[in-house]
């Protein structure tokens, strides 16, 4: 055995077996530290927590804990550490990759009651918030000061900031304003050993390693977040949106590259293909041109002078790129109408199909044409339709695979379809997930993106925070054993992934 193998935690080799966890003992220990009404263990009380935004994967936890203070979180984690019980932290449960799927032998730790904005300092442009605070609630509280919290994932009315930290959430404006990781100053959290850690500070950096970056997007695998300090930024005075139609998808993709090459970083740059446009048009009547093979939405924000200058430049580039139609929003109502269609893409998919499966691969923009052509071929191969919406500015693609879970094997075909898109994303020089996280959903594709040595290093990083491997086990980073099995799985057709997970 080499050194490398000695240092890798055993839970990185094979998932830990938690079947010996004794529910009675866990309930008894937790009820000593949690007040009545904050600990649930009857099946009917557990049911609302059985899945997150990825409803295809469901599991009942052993218990649900709903602490209201950090001291209770410390107590819960200490007990779980002592008893060797897995812990899955959960915010609003809007995640799309199964990151908050409960562990059947573990505690589901809901931070929903940590829902207060503790401090908002307009001069320093910071807000100190509890993890259960909704993303949009921060911007609403900051609005009277002319400030807002920039990352705006599409679920922002519901998703919590703690979940945003765990997933490093993005949004339609992140090309210009950054992801969650760019908009945080500090995270306070508790380790599985019950130690309180202050990561980052009210300053722009902290002494030592950049643990703030490491914890952001770590999918609840390193610490449980109990407090977050976010940056607030000034609200732009004006925003205006350009809608451009193209008779060819690749030409639309080229137009995106030309906008960037012209030195413009738009506030938002989105693309939809014809099937996506048709689906949303029927639903929200945004006035999209239905004969276009693709449409682009390009938003400019800033001072009125800045916006006028930028829109002029964008228009010139789009004309030069062969747009068949260009419309510039004349007022706020029209701008919102342009966006209404894009924002309704997911519900529209739900309207034209009983179920849909959303992918999240990111690719270099120049490979877009190849990807879309390949997706068309996959539609035939799997006998399923796919509509495409795309954060074009940063290469983040959201193909929505339409299926009907009540039809035999459609879910399975949808999953295989999705897996093929993700693996192609890696092959094209991209990644399997731009903003939704790996969770349980994409865990097998991690084996395609990373080498064994890299996976080992991820587990060592986890062990630096969580030596016993109790925080969200089985998510985000695949065990070497799983990757070995997946290697076999890819060749054995008809094999159902994760047979241990109930399906609906």
């Amino acid at each position: 055995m080499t050194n490398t193998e000695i240092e890798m935690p055993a839970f990185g080799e094979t998932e830990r077996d938690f079947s010996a966890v004794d529910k009675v003992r866990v309930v008894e220990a937790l009820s000593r530290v949690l007040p009545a009404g904050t600990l649930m263990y009857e099946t009917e009380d557990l049911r609302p927590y059985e899945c997150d935004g990825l409803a295809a994967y469901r599991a009942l936890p052993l218990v649900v804990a709903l602490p209201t203070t950090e001291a209770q979180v410390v107590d819960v984690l200490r007990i779980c550490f002592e008893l060797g019980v897995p812990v899955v932290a959960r915010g609003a449960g809007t995640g799309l990759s199964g990151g908050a799927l409960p562990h059947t032998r573990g505690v589901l730790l809901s931070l929903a009651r940590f829902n207060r904005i503790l401090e908002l300092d307009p001069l320093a442009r910071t807000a100190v918030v509890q993890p259960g605070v909704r993303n949009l609630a921060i911007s609403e509280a900051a609005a009277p000061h002319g400030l807002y919290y920039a990352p705006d994932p599409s679920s922002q009315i519901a998703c919590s900031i703690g979940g945003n930290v765990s997933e490093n959430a993005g949004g339609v404006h992140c090309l210009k304003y950054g992801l969650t990781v760019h908009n945080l100053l500090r995270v306070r959290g508790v380790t599985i050993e019950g130690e309180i850690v202050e990561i980052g500070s009210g300053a722009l950096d902290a002494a030592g390693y950049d643990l703030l970056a490491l914890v952001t997007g770590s999918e609840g695998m390193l610490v449980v977040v109990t407090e977050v300090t976010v940056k607030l930024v000034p609200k732009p005075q004006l925003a205006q949106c350009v809608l451009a139609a193209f008779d060819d998808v690749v030409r639309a993709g080229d137009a995106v590259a030309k906008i960037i090459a012209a030195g413009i970083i738009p506030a938002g740059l989105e693309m939809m293909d014809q099937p996506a446009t048709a689906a949303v048009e029927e639903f929200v009547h945004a006035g999209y041109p239905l004969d276009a093979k693709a449409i682009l939405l390009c938003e400019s924000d800033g001072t009125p002078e800045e916006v006028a200058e930028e829109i002029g430049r964008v228009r010139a580039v789009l004309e030069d790129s062969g747009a068949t139609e260009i419309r510039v929003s004349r007022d706020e109502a029209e701008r919102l109408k342009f966006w209404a269609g894009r924002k309704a893409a997911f519900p529209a998919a739900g309207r034209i199909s009983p179920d849909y499966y959303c992918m999240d691969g990111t690719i270099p923009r120049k490979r877009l044409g190849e990807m879309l052509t390949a997706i068309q071929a996959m539609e035939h191969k799997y006998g399923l339709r796919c509509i495409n919406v795309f954060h074009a500015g940063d290469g983040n693609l959201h193909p929505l695979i339409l299926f009907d879970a009540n039809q035999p094997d459609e879910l399975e075909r949808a999953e295989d379809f999705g897996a093929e898109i993700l693996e192609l994303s890696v092959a094209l020089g991209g990644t399997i997930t731009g903003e939704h996280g790996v969770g349980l959903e994409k865990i097998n594709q991690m084996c395609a993106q990373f080498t064994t040595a890299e996976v080992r290093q991820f587990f060592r990083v986890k062990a630096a925070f969580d030596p016993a491997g109790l925080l969200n086990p089985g998510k985000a980073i695949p065990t070497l054993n799983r990757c070995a099995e997946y290697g076999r799985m890819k060749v054995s057709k008809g094999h159902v992934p994760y047979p241990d997970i109930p399906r609906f």
Partner: protein
Amino acid sequence: MTTIEKDWAERVRAAAAAKTPLCLRGGGTKDFHGRETAGEVFDLRANTGVVAYEPTELVVTVRGGTPLAELEPVLAEKGQYLAFEPPHFGAGATVAGCVAAGLSGPRRANMGAVRDFMLGVKLLDGRGEVLKFGGQVMKNVAGYDVSRLVAGSLGTLGIVLEVSLKVLPRPVAEATLRFELDEAGALRRMNEWGGQPLPLSATLWHDGVLQVRLSGAEAAVRAAADRLGGERLAADAAAALWSSVREQAAAPFALAPGEVLWRLSLPSTAPALGLAGRQVVEWGGAQRWLASATDPAQIRARAAELGGHATVFRGGDRSGAVFQPLTAPLATIHRRLKQSFDPAGIFNPGRLYPEF
């Protein structure tokens, strides 16, 4: 793997087996930074070259030993730049050194730090394994964000073989404005302006003078300059000013015997330090340089009291604490992380903290 990567991996494995400490070194322009470290000098300058540069993707992938002075003109030719405005501190500054030092220039408060522009890294770890984290795309949440962790780790986690950095278009227009203001007035002004939709790209206060740089679209810079008033600097004088601040070539950074240059990183609204010494305030109030001979304990205590941390940046006792000491739980996590990347403890031991 390239030949250099293979050779270096072998050298690292041999050093790990023999527990020989290695002092990782690029251009050596930041040798002054961090604690003193012993060890065999490992010269990283041979690993040079731009691996891929796609201006329309806003990404450059470059080998660690590439001098910043070679990379920056390549970007400039396409109208792009490193928006964190890295200080060079000497002619030979390399990309890997820039990332490992994690230092950012005057634009930091408005545009972001080195870590904010890190998209991916290729790292040679202490086992002699080549590992890749992140990638070449803007959005990537697969796996822990190790590439940003490497920024500012001072070479203690591994050898940076290659990095992918986000690049941005250079602003079309710039203007620098000058105002006479005392420290408290300048701090207030910087924070107030920071909360308004103005195209700020740098702020600087020293000795009763606040200077503010605006960068962006022609119309936006013009409108903001008209609104803020002040005295406008000529373009060449402005360029010289910001470069001398970035490189710490400006007069207030010159140290008298016995003086130490401290870097205090604080919440931007922290009040005046009230410590003896010469001060330069940057980053909207969030970075305060202090040339002082005051007792280090007093400076650290004041930084902590104000909600930030203090670093001995130049001069002083480099065998003691250079960076603000960590709390016990964070120190444990740091030790474990260091060990996980470099089990034999051969990379720049002690450069960051004495324990590792």
